[in-house]
């Protein structure tokens, strides 16, 4: 394709990306460098059904004036990035000097909100993605072999988890795994323990979330693999059959090498998606034991008080950096393959 054609072809989506992704990122970055202006407090008399008393309140006029002078807030540089609710440099330094063992240091580190969230996010990413790729591939292979008349309904059934909105899907499962729900009581029966509850311990909640993640993401891998399977050349397969290769050998030596680039693509998208996990945490009411980076952003903007734009902006930037780091190895690899193919 000539460069000129490519440019005009790409221009509309490039413009949309710049407007709706690029500019908001830049804006979040600027916001993350600022904190709210100082709140001016005053003592006032306050009366309610329980009586009158003197209480502290924000002096709205004075504070509004300050806000108008500095609409972005006070410049804080990278201060928000380093505070306790984010990278927590001071706390880590202190923990490093004061802790006697690596285990103690890790304990302190993983008690800090950002690192706690990072641990869950990474665990979720790396335990969900591989099974999704493997399962998606197996399901695609199986669906590919069934008779034509059954294919349609089967495909619909298989991609159902992806069609169901994540929040709804997780809520439905949340009720099913309740101690009195169908899955919850079955598990109690299976392990013969009437007090077993999937919601009560952090480990079991993590496992539930991960299983949900696999259930929800597998259809995506399936769809891509299934489409790619249609492009596998028939000649080498027929040749292999004549040579007496078993089904396993044909898959291992012809199909898998053919689908390899597709698998890289699926891994890339899955890692990126899973790094931003949020809905299942809300749906499973798992905020207490499993927090992700996205959940931290959500919580900063949706807690009971004024929205913490600076804090949310900083976490967003760190998430973007996280995604970039995560994808680098895969991207480098793809680039190398691209070069060698040339």
């Amino acid at each position, binding site marked *: 394709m000539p460069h000129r054609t490519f440019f005009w072809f790409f221009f509309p989506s490039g413009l949309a990306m710049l407007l709706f992704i690029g500019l908001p990122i830049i804006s979040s970055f600027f916001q993350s460098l600022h*904190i*709210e*202006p*100082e*709140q001016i*407090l005053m003592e*006032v*008399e*306050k*009366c*309610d*059904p*329980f009586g*009158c008393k003197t*209480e*502290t*309140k*924000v002096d*709205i006029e004075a504070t*509004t004036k300050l806000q108008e002078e500095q609409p972005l*807030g*006070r410049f804080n540089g990278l201060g*928000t990035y380093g*505070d*306790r*609710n984010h990278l927590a440099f001071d*706390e880590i330094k202190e923990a490093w000097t004061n802790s006697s063992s690596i285990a103690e240091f890790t304990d302190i580190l993983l*008690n800090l*909100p950002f690192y706690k969230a990072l641990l869950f996010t990474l665990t979720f990413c790396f335990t969900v993605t591989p099974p999704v790729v493997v399962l998606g591939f197996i399901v695609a292979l199986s669906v590919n072999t069934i008779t034509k008349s059954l294919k349609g309904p089967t495909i619909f059934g298989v991609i159902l988890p992806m069609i169901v909105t994540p929040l709804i899907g997780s809520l439905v499962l949340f009720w099913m795994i*309740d*101690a009195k729900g169908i899955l919850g009581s079955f598990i109690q029966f299976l392990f013969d323990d*009437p*007090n077993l*509850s999937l*919601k*009560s*311990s*952090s480990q079991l909640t993590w496992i539930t979330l991960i299983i949900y993640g696999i259930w929800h993401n597998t259809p995506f891998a399936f769809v891509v693999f299934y489409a790619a399977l249609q492009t596998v050349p028939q000649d080498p397969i027929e040749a292999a059959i004549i040579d007496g290769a078993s089904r396993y050998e044909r898959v291992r030596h012809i199909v898998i090498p053919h689908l390899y680039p597709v698998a890289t693509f699926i891994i890339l998208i899955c890692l990126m998606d899973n790094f931003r996990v949020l809905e299942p945490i809300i749906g*499973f*009411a*798992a*905020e*207490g*034991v499993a*927090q992700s980076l996205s959940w931290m952003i959500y*919580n900063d*903007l*949706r*807690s*009971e*008080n*004024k*929205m*913490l734009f*600076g*804090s949310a902006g900083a976490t967003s930037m760190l998430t973007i950096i996280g995604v970039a780091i995560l994808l680098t190895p895969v991207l480098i690899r793809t680039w190398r393959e691209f070069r060698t193919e040339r």
Partner: protein
Amino acid sequence: MKKLLIALLFTFVSTSAYAGGHSPCGVTDGSIKILANEFTTYRIFMDEVKSCAGPSADFSVTHSVDHNKLQVAALSANPAEFSAKLVTNGSITTLMNDNLIRPLNDLVAKYGSALQDNQKIVIDGKIYAIAFMANAQHLWYRESILNDLGIAVPSTYEEVIAAAEKIKASGKMANPYAGAFKSGWNLGQEFVNMYLGHGGDFFKAGTAEVSVNNAKGVAALNMLKRLTEVSNPDFLTQDTNAVKEEWESGNVALMHIWNSGAASLLDDEGDQAIKADTRLAPSPSVGGGSKPATTLWWDGFGIATNTSDENAEASFRALLGAATSTEMANANPNATIWLIDGYSPGDTAGPVVDAANRGATPYPSLPYMSLLHGALSTELVEFLQGNESAEKALADVEAAYVAKATEQGFL
């Protein structure tokens, strides 16, 4: 002759309705959009608001348990997404901080002749909200179960735990106690109750400097821990509505939830045997203190700053009509404690009045309290799961609060 009679009757009715200044009901101009919490009493109140607004009004209400999470974003927009918000002494502070609700003095002067003085929430000489009900968390128990086992109604949390352990040992119930321990606002509120019950102060007097990491804080946390040990193991996922369901399913014999829960627990739906066995008791004290470990709340409404004067007036009129409706209050005497003139309290009012008499404090309405409540919401979970000491959990709460309060400009 007949026509004349009807005309006369009509005049009579309309003059009596207009007797007390302008009548608030029958709104025709402006739109009314209300954001409110989700529980039965609010539903009753909103039905009255809707009927007051009249059939020709542009009326809508959004009930959500996440109302407090939505309020700032929804009311900051200009024009705001909602023209009015049902507020409490907990949520009004956040809206006041950002100047998101407007003074109501003019509207009260025009329409508010039926209001009682204690319904007006006056801050620095201006009316910012109109209260219509009072609420508090207190103890609920199943009479037959306590009687069968010879347990007296607990008046302290130490007795609550002893009673719960006895019920557990008897094999009647596996998890006899329930409280709203869902991680998030509910869990924070449980700590607020228990800490105030121990006589604690959240802040150093007159400053935004937090101080909860002390002996009282540790005692409060340990008491919560002991309560969760006699609760359903899923306690971290149960909010008030989930606890009410547990109660109605007969899984719980003791619980500490809102007085307004009576509206759904004592209605004609659900297991009537459990309803007949449900009793209300004062909120227990704790740690040898005399104050009950609970907080007093008022519920009322505020009108958005960022909405047109026309919408503000329409919303105010409809809400005021309900907030002064003696008929609604007396038709639902047990739904809550109405602050409305002419209301005669039902049988369920006792525990809230008792809490007020025994010196329970209203929920603190300090501008930085919601930040502390937010920190409590997330940082106490690990302690309750047994992964962290009480001191460590409270130190985490303080550190999380300091980071947030610094960013918000309070420190």
